[in-house]
């Protein structure tokens, strides 16, 4: 890997590590507004089209202190961290907040932001989560139009169709570049460490897309393919919505003698799964994107009878040749807790070894996790001779 590639990786990792520094610099340079977005489905393209910087608000690693007086300890780590950041007045870089997802915990955290800074605009346009009803698409279209209106009001700038088309193209291109990296990994090229992959996606949620894509191109141009190591067990990492799993955890999993070949994490392939059609009217294309996305990467926060997260996972596993699966569940994440038994049933039916690991904001019980991962890897190894 050349120095140019290494530098680009370091820059992306720096933004992933400290989004606030990037955001502050961007504001100084551009003198434009920054919109804080709640995960996972807000169409950031619309904010971009109005000249704002859309940023998916990230969980911080700092210990939760005042936030504990705002949300209970049995909310997911992401919402607790956001509540803590709001209470500590650490969200001051954002000129407004937008959200589209109806997760009751997410709304709880958003209400805390609203309570802490009532003067900062916030808009919740609830995207229908029942995807297959006859009225779903019309509802989604209405919401997309309301996002355009709200962002126009917020930035004071009209959004023209050409602005949206331009933003859609830039975002699609960024997703394509990222997918190139993830697709290569699925095909056996492990050039990048899991922590680097996470940094690529996380920084994409924060940075100006053109800038991000330029750095990604630098990374890609000079990085040489590295095939996955022999003797390592191939694993798929699944789940973990809204916030990134700790990179130490991903490293710990690989340290046990495994290699992560694929994932469906929000800070992974889920975020980049779906492009927005460039040949139709942008609002229509955005509505279809929201619908298509749940087919491309089914999410348990949505309800769609003919789309199965479990079936999708089995397909991914078959494609990547993963020999086992680690379900990473953000502790207290209700949609994940509800869907997990369906995954378990499907994986068991196919004889795919898997382990459930719940993550918390506060830290990683390293030894317990190591023991559980090693036990699973051992099970996989024991199976190997008969499988061969």
């Amino acid at each position, binding site marked *: 890997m050349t120095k140019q590639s290494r530098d680009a990786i370091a820059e992306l990792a720096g933004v992933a590590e400290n989004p606030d520094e990037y955001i502050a610099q961007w504001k100084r340079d551009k003198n434009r507004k920054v919109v804080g977005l709640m995960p996972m489905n807000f169409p950031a393209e619309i904010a971009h089209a109005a000249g704002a910087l859309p940023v998916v608000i990230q969980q911080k690693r700092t210990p939760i202190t005042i936030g504990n*007086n*705002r*949300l*209970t300890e*049995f*909310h997911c780590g992401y919402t607790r961290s956001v509540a803590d950041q709001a209470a500590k007045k650490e969200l001051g870089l954002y000129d407004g907040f937008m959200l589209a997802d*109806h*997760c*009751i*915990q997410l*709304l*709880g955290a958003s*209400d*805390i932001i*609203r*309570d802490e800074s009532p003067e900062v605009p*916030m*808009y*919740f*346009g*609830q995207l*229908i*989560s*029942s995807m297959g*009803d*006859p*009225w779903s698409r019309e*509802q989604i279209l209405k919401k997309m139009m309301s996002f355009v209106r709200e962002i126009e009001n917020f930035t004071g700038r009209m959004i023209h169709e050409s602005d949206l088309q331009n933003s859609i193209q830039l975002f699609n291109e960024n997703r394509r570049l990222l997918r190139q990296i993830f697709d290569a990994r699925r095909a056996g090229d492990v050039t990048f460490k899991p922590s680097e992959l996470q940094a690529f996606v996380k920084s994409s949620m924060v940075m100006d897309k053109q800038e991000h894509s330029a750095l990604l191109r630098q990374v890609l141009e000079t990085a040489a393919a590295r095939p996955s190591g022999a003797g390592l067990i191939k694993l798929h990492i699944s789940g973990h919505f809204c916030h990134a799993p700790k990179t130490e955890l991903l490293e710990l999993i690989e340290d046990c003698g495994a290699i992560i070949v694929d994932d469906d994490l929000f800070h992974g392939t889920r975020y980049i799964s779906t492009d927005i059609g460039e040949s139709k009217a942008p609002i229509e294309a955005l509505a279809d994107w929201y619908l298509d996305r749940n087919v491309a990467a089914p999410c*348990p*926060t949505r*309800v769609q*009878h003919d789309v199965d997260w479990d079936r999708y996972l089995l397909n991914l596993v078959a494609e990547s040749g993963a020999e086992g699966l680690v379900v990473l*569940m953000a*502790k*207290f994440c*209700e*949609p994940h*807790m*509800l*869907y*997990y*038994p*369906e995954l*378990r*049933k499907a994986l068991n039916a196919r004889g795919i070894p898997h382990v459930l690991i*719940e993550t918390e904001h506060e830290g990683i019980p390293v030894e317990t996790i190591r023991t559980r991962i090693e036990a699973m890897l051992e099970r996989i190894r024991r199976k190997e001779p008969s499988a061969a």
Partner: protein
Amino acid sequence: MSIENAVANKTTRLASTDAGRGMISAYWENIFTARERGSQVVWYNGSAVNPFFQAAGLEWAHGEAFSARLAAQKLEKPAQLAGKEYGYVDELCSYARTHLGCAVLAKNAQEQAQSGVVGLIDQKELASRLPAPDFFVNAYAGCSTGQQWDEITYRVFGKEVPIFNVSLPFLWGNKPDAGYLRGQEWEDASDYVSAQLYKLVEFIESMTGRPFDWDALRQNMTYIKRASELRREAMAMCKAVAPTPATYWDWIATIAHINFLPASQALVDYFTAVRDEIAMRVDQRIPAIKSERYRLYFDGIMNWNKVGVLARKFAEHDVAVVCGRYTHNAFWQEPHLINTDDPIRGMAQHYLLCPSNHGVQTLKYLTNRDCVDYGIDGIVFHSTRTCRAFSSPQRLLAKSAHEVLGIPSMFFEGDIADESFYKGELLESRLEAMLESIDVRRARGQLAIA
């Protein structure tokens, strides 16, 4: 005298609600025998869409209500165990976990019946007596878990049972005109849900194969509206009166009736009796808690395992828990919205008025309003472990009541249907601390007046 008796002697429970318990058992017994009678059974959660089912000649089983009943009767364990074996994590909403456990048991029972194997499941176990559904209706407001829970139940039954979703938008309050029962957001949401209810009727028609009986729906809503008016009238009688003639625990005993029992003259008679008994108590100055010294507000969904324990605990400390979010801001609570000739919009609006379907601004308004109206000294927050919908706004509500009204609060940990989360000792010490702080405030107030 034993402590139990001493506490019992402090409390005068409403005779009318005690008398109404039989209506609940009769309702459930009816559900359990639905199959034998050849009736179609619909499962639903959340909103009270039961008047539609009743009008369509169906039997209806409300998931949360059944989980609550199991927990109140200490019969929840077999269902929760079945859920756990199926893979549900203990931190999942315990209503959902219990009900999904019932789904697993009901499905097993159904399969065994079809394969001719009988007796594998102990039919005496209440959890397994719930008949499997012919179809589902999902109409869950506020909490995102509600919709996902039904979708998963649909999957537990192998996607073979039809399901209909009513999407209920959260009343977030984006615009300055937004507020309780007002603003464009409220009007738009009311229209949106009304339109879906007409589609629900079409779906029900397709399930029953019969035209929907609109007259029956109008009749049902006439009974419900009257029952609700009586309930609200009775509640209002507790506002200005100290000692209060009825407590929160009395209102808890009326939830099943107003929320899912059949709409009928019997329902109206039941609430008439409740209203009359309270009126009589007001006249004769009969207190619900004989030595009422403190009036508290209860926030949180009920802890069904511990209703009796909690009622005794507060009475022991001369506390009258007078009202609460779950009892007073839910369950057909705005009967004036119901037009009995054309009930759809009023029904839609009530489905939107679930007490966890409001942004915190509206919840602050409702809580502080009730604290003033009912002469409240402090708020008890049931920090409900597996119900984030209720617990999310609680800290902000406590902060607001303190800042706006100077009212102190306390939190205690428990859960809707899983008693392992209940922390009794903490409740005791925090309650004592809060009552002391109320005493101090009063003493200061008296000194200031003096």
